[in-house]
């Protein structure tokens, strides 16, 4: 006798239920994330305006009036300092890992660099404190300052830039490199004239990825910079602290004041929008370079 046609009701039910479950789970996963953006907008919209971005905080407690210009300027300073440290070092180390990929020393370096990716941000804060900010013992004795915080954030960025640079260089076709070497180019010429230009979008993506990771970091700043309601005149010393967007949100939300919470949510929205725009830029860059690579064959 032939088996009955089609699936048994039990199997059909089982088939449907898994599909529905995955759909529900996906909605459950995305809803809170979108809700965060919506709630930040909903609670912060009373504070949002163009002058919120361009004016300094005022009133007492500081921030109850005015905007977040100090945070935006400070975040820019920190990102600039972090990039100044991490881009040269990261690209340098990435070049090394790519060029001498199979030596034992490079393998050890790669392992340590990957390990650094997993260091929690509080630990970076402690390290930054003892290297840059502390006033006793070894270290630079810069106090709670923008320079200390920027370089600590640079520490966080270094392994990210290293990793992405190495990956981008590996994506350059091996045959190009070998062709250039066969024509008698020196390694320096290959790196300068071929490998780095070919991988430059990848490296740029890596730097932006690092900036993205560093932008929302708050914990290291608690140890090395804290916060400034104005714009500092110097980056070192006892009044060298800079403002920072993430830190500003933290301080505002930590107060049980309704008005500050509104400001905090507006600032959170600004930070989220900046991060998402940056993320989109990275994706466009990566997508564009892929397209370009396809056209070049």
């Amino acid at each position, binding site marked *: 006798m032939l088996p009955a046609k089609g699936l048994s009701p039990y199997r059909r039910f*089982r*088939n449907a*239920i*898994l*599909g529905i479950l*995955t759909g*529900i*789970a*996906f909605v*459950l*996963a*995305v809803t809170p994330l979108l809700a*965060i953006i919506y*709630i930040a907008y909903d609670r912060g919209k009373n504070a949002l305006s163009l002058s919120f971005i361009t004016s300094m905080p005022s009133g007492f407690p500081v921030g109850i009036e005015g905007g977040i210009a100090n945070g935006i300027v400070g975040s820019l300073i920190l990102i600039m300092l972090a990039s100044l440290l991490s881009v040269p*070092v990261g690209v*340098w180390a990435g070049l*090394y890992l790519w*060029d*001498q990929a199979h030596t034992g*020393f490079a393998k050890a*370096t790669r392992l*340590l660099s*990957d*390990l*650094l*990716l*997993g*260091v929690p*941000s*509080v*630990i970076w804060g*402690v390290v930054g*404190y003892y290297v840059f900010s*502390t006033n006793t013992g070894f270290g630079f004795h810069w106090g709670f300052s923008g320079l200390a915080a920027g370089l600590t954030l640079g520490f*966080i960025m*270094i*392994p*990210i830039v*290293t990793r992405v640079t190495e990956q981008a260089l590996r994506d350059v076709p091996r045959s190009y490199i070998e062709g250039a070497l066969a024509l008698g180019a020196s390694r*320096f010429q290959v*790196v300068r004239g071929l490998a780095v230009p070919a991988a430059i979008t990848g490296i740029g993506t890596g730097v932006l*990825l690092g900036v*993205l*990771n560093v932008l*929302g970091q*708050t*914990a290291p700043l*608690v140890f090395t910079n804290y916060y400034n309601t104005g714009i500092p005149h110097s980056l070192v010393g006892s009044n060298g602290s800079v403002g920072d967007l*993430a830190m500003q*949100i*933290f301080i505002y*939300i930590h107060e049980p004041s309704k008005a500050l*919470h509104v400001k905090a*949510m507006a600032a*959170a929205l600004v*930070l*989220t929008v900046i*991060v*998402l725009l940056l993320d989109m830029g990275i*994706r466009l860059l990566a997508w564009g370079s892929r397209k370009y690579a396809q056209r070049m064959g």
Partner: protein
Amino acid sequence: MEFNPDIQEENEESLNEGSRLPSAVSPLTFVSPTEEELPSRDLVAPKDLPPEGVIKRSRKAAHAKMLRSEMLFRISLMGGGLLVMGLFLTVLGVSVVKAWPSITRFGWAFLWTSTWNPHKQIFGAWTYLVGTFWVTGISLVVAIPVAILSALFLSDYSPKWLTGIVSTLIEMLAGIPSIVFGAFGIIFMVPLLRDHVEPFLADTLGKRWDFFNGDAMGYGILAAGLVVGIMVIPLVATVTRDSLVMVPRETVEASYALGSTKAEMVFFVKLPAVVPGIIGSVILGFGRAIGETMAVLLLIGNQASIPTSIQDVGYTISSLLANTFTYAVIDPLFSAAEIELGLILLVISLVVNTVGRELLLKLMGGRLAGSVGGG
């Protein structure tokens, strides 16, 4: 184009003459260059060649010079590697050296001592370890099922036109800074838990198990765990999705050919095939959750007590450090104890991240987006 009879005729004529070339093309000629046109003989080759040995030596010297510069370049590249190594040693060195007073004073007992009394100079990690694992545990219990099922949705169930958009969306949402999650928790999650969820839990499950009873404060390990869970979902989902799409098409097709439904294919073939990937992604999620600082600091209530109920407040290692480190540095033993806590966290994170990464790298052959622990 107009037909030109003249050319036609001309060509015919030339053909008739027996020449295969049209007359317009002159035959190839070669005129040898005159004496002036030639480059001077001195330039082409010196009249008196240096002896063989000299040439060899100069070649050798040039070669050696090239090798030297190549070597120099390679060594100068090594500087970058040394800097990264130096950075790692700095991280480890600072943590160990600064924690040393506490390590020597308390020994292993530090791990299971639950007293934390700066005035009496007694420090123990147990309270914070328990708090950390409560928050991480709650977050993973929330995140893992949702993340794995939504990874399945992304890899198999979502319609084609939607896949690209929602995958990008979930990857982008993974980048929202943790301080924003913390603010969201305070504004939205804490009131929600305080007014609705926790009284409900106490009324239903709490009647049988004390574990669900509590003060309904809103703040506590539940709020922190939930928010960290939300934060971890995109990471786990994306990495699981990445390993799910690596399952070979042949395997999937073979399963269909044997008559399985889609759900059977996914559940009995695809999921078992990516178990290492799922474990790896969960481990990475654990690594992210355990190092989470600011969101937890804002939500957990920051009370150094061991939570006995899901509504209790607590303290985690990272939030303790972020909260109290700046005044702990005044007392060397106090700060050393805090840094020893940090060292424990560091070791756990490093082990967890390495294991997770290794599992995933084996599965996916080298491509893995970097993720930084917490913020």
